[in-house]
């Protein structure tokens, strides 16, 4: 888990997760326009984080697979993108997953 903290507003932060650890089959397809905005030449240059919404219980907590943060590690540019893939939702239940052993 990663905490994304706003520098302008100290009360604003998000809990991010590595989606591939929780959902090994996650395959975000970034659009050409988003790639250009991030100054990336290839989708391989992009790493992804998903925003989680932590509720009272783990079972009720969700991750946003529809709108991940796409990060171009080469130039440190990032943006939240919206995937055109109907299989991913804004509120994917976290409770149904388990991490692999050793993580």
């Amino acid at each position, binding site marked *: *888990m990663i905490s994304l903290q706003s520098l302008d507003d100290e009360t*604003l*932060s*998000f*809990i991010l997760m590595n989606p591939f650890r929780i959902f090994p089959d996650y395959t975000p397809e970034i659009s050409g326009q988003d790639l250009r905005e991030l100054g990336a030449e290839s989708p391989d240059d992009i790493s992804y984080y998903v*925003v*989680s*919404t*932590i*509720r*009272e*219980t*783990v079972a009720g*907590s969700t991750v*946003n697979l*529809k*709108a991940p943060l796409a990060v171009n590690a080469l130039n440190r540019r990032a943006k*939240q993108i*919206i995937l055109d893939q109907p299989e991913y939702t*804004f*509120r994917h239940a*976290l409770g149904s997953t*388990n*991490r692999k052993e050793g993580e």
Partner: protein
Amino acid sequence: MLILQRRKGQSLSINKNITLTVVDAGPEWVKLAIDAPKDIPILRSELKEAAAENKEASATASRQVLDELLKK
């Protein structure tokens, strides 16, 4: 809810100052041209949904759940 059928190139007016024109249409999408005053916000609905989800995600996370997740 009002449902209208329009063909490519046809348009409709909303409230005298907004015109929607169907520019093109495919089997799974339509391309719309929207002519509206600058002060009228136009957002793809999924953006609105994403913004609402972000707002909820940024609300205070429960310490207890975080601990539980870290143990997993």
